[in-house]
């Protein structure tokens, strides 16, 4: 899906002119310094490295970003649009835009907590983590990023993440791709991983951000997903709570950051 040509790196900068506009007003025109041809990724004060997945796509254009007042909230958003979409003026409601644009549009929101420290550390080319080669990760991107699943017309079961066979009946020939809802999941179970209990892939995250929580959520169609919790510094989420999911940075492996969805409170 994406060429593998090395580690993430900054490829461009967007410079902010003047004071920050109100969050609701943030959009391309406010951020691009009048230069709509500036492409790729940027931040307010320094370049944010572009995830490799986007870097090598000439049709990727960053059209906006936002800052969340929550210290663990998203600070940057990259939306892939084509050159023809350069005028897209997006700040909020990005998930809707994604849905409207279909599966070719990717959205990234990076965790802000400890981001600078995370970015200043070298991304190890060798990891003590469970080894998932880039090809396996890439294969999982449709489910990881866009929450795509398979519905089986033989038994009506919905299988997530996507795999070779229906989890209801084991057949493979009657699967069609559907998108799971990104909003409205319910927390079935919730744990907090004590410091030092994380898989080694998350050592850097814990050093930078602190202990994290993980939830199992009911999505729809009998599908459940186990995902990390983000953007809830007050730890207000509880079992039974309603959540949505956003795309975030997960952990580094083989010189790249891996991305996937995380749970955030429905109403921040």
């Amino acid at each position, binding site marked *: 899906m994406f060429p593998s040509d090395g580690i993430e790196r900054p490829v461009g900068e967007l410079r902010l002119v003047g004071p920050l506009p109100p969050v609701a007003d943030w959009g391309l025109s406010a951020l691009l310094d009048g230069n709509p041809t500036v492409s790729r990724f940027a931040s307010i004060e320094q370049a944010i490295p572009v995830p490799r997945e986007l870097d090598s796509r000439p049709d990727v254009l960053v059209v906006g970003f936002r800052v969340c007042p929550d210290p663990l909230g998203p600070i940057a958003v990259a939306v892939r649009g084509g050159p023809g979409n350069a005028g897209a003026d997006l700040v909020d409601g990005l998930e809707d835009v994604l849905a409207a644009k279909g599966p070719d549009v990717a959205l990234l929101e990076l965790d802000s907590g400890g981001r600078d420290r995370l970015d200043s550390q070298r991304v190890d080319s060798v990891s003590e983590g469970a080894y998932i080669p880039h090809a396996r990760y890439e294969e999982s991107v449709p489910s990881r990023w866009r929450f795509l699943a398979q519905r089986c017309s033989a038994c009506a079961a919905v299988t997530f993440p996507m795999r070779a066979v229906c989890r209801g009946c084991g057949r493979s020939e009657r699967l069609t791709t559907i998108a799971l809802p990104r909003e409205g999941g319910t927390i079935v*179970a919730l744990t907090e991983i004590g410091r030092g209990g994380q898989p080694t*892939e998350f050592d850097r995250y814990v050093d930078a951000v602190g202990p994290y929580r993980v939830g199992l959520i009911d999505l729809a169609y009998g599908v459940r997903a186990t995902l990390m919790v983000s953007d809830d510094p007050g730890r207000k989420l509880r079992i039974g709570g309603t959540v949505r999911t956003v795309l975030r940075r997960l952990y580094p492996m083989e010189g790249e950051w891996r991305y996937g969805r995380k749970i955030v409170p429905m109403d921040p």
Partner: protein
Amino acid sequence: MTAESAAIIGAGNTKFGALPEGPRALVGLAVREAIASVDRGLDRSVIGEGFLATLGFGGWQIGNASAVLAEQAGLVGVPVTRVENACASGGFALRSAVRSVEEGTSDVVLVVGVEKMTDSPSARRRYWLGVSGDTEWERSAGLTFAGVYGLIASRYCADHPRAREALSAVAIKNHANGALNPKAHFRKAIRTEDLAHAPTIADPLRLYDCCPVSDGAAALLIARGDIAHRFTDTPVRIRGMGAASDTLAVQDRPVLTEFGATRRSARSAFDAAGWTAQRIQLLEVHDCFTIAELLALEDLGFAPAGGAVPLTLSGDTARTGRLPVNPDGGLKSKGHPIGATGVSQAYEIFHQLRDSAGPRQVPGAERALSHNVGGSGASATVTLFERG
């Protein structure tokens, strides 16, 4: 099955804990003790096959580990197979051994479980503690085993009042049992206060809800049923076995607080023996985390959903209670050298049913059950034993 059921005629178990010995030496120690334990002696030439249960923790001899068993047991030339189903490797190796003697190709089969865990550096250890869950999805959400069991415990505690109290009661009970077991990793009783102040590992699980990282090995000699009495007057018969699988990731299961693999294994084992749960007088269950003991009691049919809480809080599962559970201290206190655990459970039952368990002896037990789980429930075995 009949009186001809395959039988354990000898058993060995190293001490569990942070040991100086490496995996090869541990295998050798357990095998020597097992052979020495055969009442009328055993010539190694009757051993026709061997099974070695190990995860290969730390990367030790992932390929052909079974050859180490052949060397250490003096069995070079005999077929040996490594069996790997994470923490249930031992139970599945025992199952392979029983099937091997039932086939009639061997008179006696040796089954050994081993794990060497404490000599890996911390990062490597945490890597290996997470390799048997769903590495692509659960792990990428930041979970190792403790985290998955923490999720399960969070749901169980939300569903059942006093569940957190029962988790602590499991830890206190199993530590009290382990204190009487000279081979246990922890031989120290703990109190409610110790638990409350322990650090969180995966909320609601705290330090004392989790089994330790241990070294150790265990060995069993399984004989064909009709010749068991050549070796001993008191064999321990295997009356029923069940084994099953489940999805790797818990997100694929309809109910988080049930292990389908345990339920299916129990049904098969009880059907094979023609027994009901009421006939069991002693249990060795897979308590890698305290929550796992509560789930086991329910999945094995000893309590309804949530019923493990009152069963545990009433003291029924204490060593001196109505239904003793984990009299050797369980994984929680005896330790959990991954590949060795399922074999070591049978070692404990071998001694309990022969009245040779010393100060932790459960008086008069004639029928027992062992329950071994792989990871967070992706595989399980249940084995039923009887004095023979």
